């Protein structure tokens, strides 16, 4: 029941993380600083190489230089490209006369402090690691898909192509993988004392990996610097432990409002309202019981 407790009176800590006791490690995460992202997509490729993620389709979208489009079962890092007629700094620059800027942002699973996907997972396949991150156990996941709509960021998705690992038994005649996949923050690399593949590959330190504490301080300093330099629209996203998901394990420095990058402006972990929903349901259930009884006894048989 401690999970429900967690919901009723949330502490700032990731749900279930404290259960590790002595084996608990320092909470780590990403600080993705879009002000130095050059849009090289090395993170996308490094991620796929390391995690053996299948290709995600070859479709020319016409959406600037982004042909990956969104995070999903087969894309765990996604670089967004937004072209704007706005100067990067102050009221002139970029293209000089007109003022152009080209926003690039490498999106990833947020590894929420309060993770809806983890909460709603009926099998316990999604779990909180000793590093405070959220990971899907592929040997447990039965592809119920509940976490997919539960995630406020649309990160998780079901892999609807042939299984690359641990295929389903032939008897059912299915070839589809059918399980749900997402960023593991390179759990295997963390176990081995390495930083995640995307951070390792990032040439400009746009993707910074480290203890969340440290990253948050670094981010505050960075924001102050950009403000001093007059950057337009600079803001941290998911850095604040008081937000609707208790702060992101992977947070961002953006140069425009979150929705411009396809991110929810004020995400809330849906299970925050679960106690209310349960009470509500019990009331409805009780009413149903009483109601049916009443309608049976009151009034005639035929």
């Amino acid at each position: 029941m401690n999970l429900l407790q967690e919901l009723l009176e949330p502490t700032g800590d990731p749900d279930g993380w404290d259960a590790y006791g002595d084996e608990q490690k320092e909470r780590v995460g990403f600080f993705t600083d879009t002000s130095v992202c050059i849009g090289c997509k090395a993170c996308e490729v490094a991620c796929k190489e390391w995690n053996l993620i299948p290709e995600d389709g070859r479709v020319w979208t016409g959406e600037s230089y982004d042909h990956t489009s969104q995070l999903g079962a087969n894309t765990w890092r996604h670089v967004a490209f937004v072209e704007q007629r706005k100067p990067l700094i102050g009221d002139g620059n970029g293209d000089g006369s007109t003022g152009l800027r080209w926003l690039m942002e490498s999106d990833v699973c947020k590894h929420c402090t309060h993770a809806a996907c983890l909460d709603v997972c009926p099998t316990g396949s999604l779990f909180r690691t000793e590093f405070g991150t959220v990971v899907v156990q592929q040997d447990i996941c039965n592809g119920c898909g509940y976490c997919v709509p539960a995630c406020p960021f649309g990160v998780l998705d079901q892999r609807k192509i042939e299984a690359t690992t641990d295929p389903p038994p032939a008897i059912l005649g299915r070839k589809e993988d059918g399980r749900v996949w997402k960023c593991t923050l390179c759990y295997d690399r963390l176990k081995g004392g390495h930083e995640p593949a995307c951070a390792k590959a990032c040439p400009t330190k746009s993707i910074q990996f480290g203890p969340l504490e440290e990253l948050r301080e670094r981010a505050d300093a960075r924001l102050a610097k950009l403000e001093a330099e007059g950057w337009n629209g600079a803001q941290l996203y998911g850095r604040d432990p008081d937000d609707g998901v208790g702060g992101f394990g992977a947070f961002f420095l953006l140069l425009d409002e979150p929705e411009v990058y396809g991110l929810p402006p004020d995400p809330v972990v849906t299970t925050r309202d679960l106690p209310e929903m349960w009470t509500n349901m019990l009331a409805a259930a009780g009413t149903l019981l009483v109601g049916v009884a009443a309608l049976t006894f009151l009034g005639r048989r035929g």
Partner: protein
Amino acid sequence: MPSLGTSFGRGGATDFQQDLQNSDCIVIMGSNMAENHPVGFQWVMEARERGAKVIHVDPRFTRTSAMATKHVGIRAGSDIAFLGGVINYILQNNLHFAEYVEHYTNAPVIIDEEFADTEELDGLFSGWDPEQGEYDVQTWMYEGMEVHGAAGQREEGFDPTKGEQSGHGGGGSGLHHGEPPAEDPTLQHPRCVFQILKRHYQRYTPDFVAETCGCSVDDFVEVAEALVQNSGRDRTSAFCYAVGWTQHTVGVQMIRAAAIVQQLLGNMGRPGGGIVALRGHASIQGSTDIPTLYNILPGYLPMPHTEDYGGLDGYIAANTSPTGWWGHFDAYFVSLMKAYFGEHASADNDWLFESLPRIDDDNSAYFTVQQMLEGNVKGYIIAGENPAVGHANGKAHRLGLAKLDWLVVRDVVEIESAAFWYDSPEVESGELKPEEIATEIFFMPAAAHTEKDGSFTNTQRLLQWHWQAVDPKEDCRSELWFYFHLGRLIKQKLEESEDERDKLIKALRWEYPTHSAIREPDAESVLQEVSGWEIGSGKFLSGYKELKADGSTACGCWIYSGCFKEGINQTARKKPHWEQDTYVAPEWAWAWPDNRRLLYNRASADPDGNPWSERKRFVWWDAEQGEWTGLDQPDFDQQKPPDYVPPEDAEAEDAIAGDHPFIMQADGRSWLYVPQGLEDGPLPTHYEPHESPFDNPLYSQRANPRRQQNKDLAEDPYNPVANEPGSDVYPYVVTTYRLTEHHTAGGMTRSVPYLAELQPAMFCEVHPDLAREVGLEHGGWATIYTSRSAIEARVMVTDRVRPLRMKDGRTVHQVGLPYHWGKRGLITGDSANDLAHMALDPNVHIQEVKAFTCGIRPGRRPRGPELPKFVAELREQAHSRREQDPRVEPEELRKTSS
């Protein structure tokens, strides 16, 4: 890189990318560094974080521009006008670094009175020979210095080789002795380089720049100001360029223009300064150092040619500069012969010089293609190249390949150049019929870099070793394996031969140990040979200074000598910079020459040997120790004091004074003005691209007079240009480029799912105004056409490609085309290079794919036989009108129709 070679003495990037973090201002021009050199670009970002200005001057707003603090859009191909403007801005306002310019450059040198400038001859320098269509460089010389006889002889009727030979300071060999005979330290003499420069660029005013480049006066001045304010004793600025400059008919001169700016501002040889030449391929620098070029031997030693030198001595004399490090040419050459032929090469047989093959003609790639088309080439080996997609006018290449007897293609996948005979636009259109192509094609699967040991020489002359990670699959083999066993088998077959022509092959040392089941040669044993050893003792050489001309040393490439010193593979050192004392990190891999990271670094100290400033201290003279010291290996005689004055009879490096940092140059100075070594002039001049919608605002001489054209080649027709009638058929400027997601001709990336999905289709980038003008819709299709061919592409309508307003009120629209696609691989598309022509830069024979003209219309291109018909109709329409026009000047009469 003759531009840097002639200006400074070595044909390589003068600085290392890590040093960019110390720049106060970085000008990226002719390069899309963030997209094509993302790893090195981290140091530009580092500089930006430290408050440096990052300026990107480019026709397009790219991922580099997005990171820059300033982007200036200019018309593709107008770079010399822009840089000339900067030079003029500096000179007119006396903003040059006086002390630096006076001591370290050839500004004070007085030039031959016969010399006449383009300003006097309406776009031509003195010595132009209309018949030959080339320059006689006699009059470009320093006053009182006759051209080096043998050098002259070397040039005679043999211009095409000049370029690369000049690449590594070959130009220096034109000078007789160190100090130029006539100088004016006050820089006042009307014929001194400084004054010539002033006159040459006086018309490059801010207004002229704005009108010619299509940028605003303010933008130009802002850039010029930024450069000036961030140069001098206390600050330094750097230039970064790539093939955005090289790939023009005036490419070498564009780079020269930047070299002049950097000399005037005193940014050469100093931390955070210099000119960083960014190379596209993994080891393209290496492939000119140890060349895949036909006209030079390793270390930029000229390949002997058919003219009579009067034997070995003549050859050596012709290429030895009495002063500077080229004074030891004989040692470099003899050591190379000993490396090649071991005991077979001896003083008695002139080290087999007489048996060396001779070049009797231009054998550059594009010339060879013409020869193929004329049926003069029997066989061709293609390795690490995909001409059918990567070379200008891909159609001409494919048609040429179809005329070979045999073709060998070595690549990791079956690229277009191997599959052209059954899968190419020409097969589609019926111009080629598989059953009629007689060419026998051998596809040899190659091993990838992860499947073999070896070294890359990167953009900053750094040799970095890599180890094999996995065995090559199936019958894939490394280049080393292929050429070693090929040589071995040939030697076997010729064992019995008494033929004179086989003598060399029989004499070849070919002893490399092999390992593993496939008998892979030991790559390190090759590196050892490249680095060199003392033949008697077998002791490894520590550097080129130990090379001897008496045959007692063997060295496969003199500039690489020392990369295996003390028997240690220096290139395999991987100690990260954070574990070393300085950011220079000398223990990470090994750089030529002599592990120097920042070339000409003696210039980081003033003439007296003290740092120009505390902030910019790098290498300086330590009076107590009596030697040069600092953060880097001094690029200077370690013990030569700053006040050293060479005696009259001094030779080689001893003839270089203590305050002349450019030790490869015969006079120890950098060259603002290049008296010898370049085909198309001692100073950069604005010429229009071979194909452009404009006349030359300066001269009636529209384009580079020395550019190489294929006047009689039916496969390479040109568009009408400027105001010629018919030019309106091809009214737009097109520029081609690469994307981060793909590698050049795409052979290595279009076949990799993880990369293919990131940029899955060929597209063109156009401005909304152009889209409206011709009715293109974002996400739809466009057909782009030139006299050569037509291609189709998805349409990306974006503000990132700006239209430019020119002086006559005309608006010039530019079309951006990535060139990665072809018919093979996971993602296919038309090749942008099919549109390009084969007019070349005269120094390095590079195609002009960064600026030419095209037409564009909505919709997909015609299919099958309709395609060539479509192209021909437009071409005829344009050309017929052009030929009837009397205004077309004969001088400009370029081949017009096929």
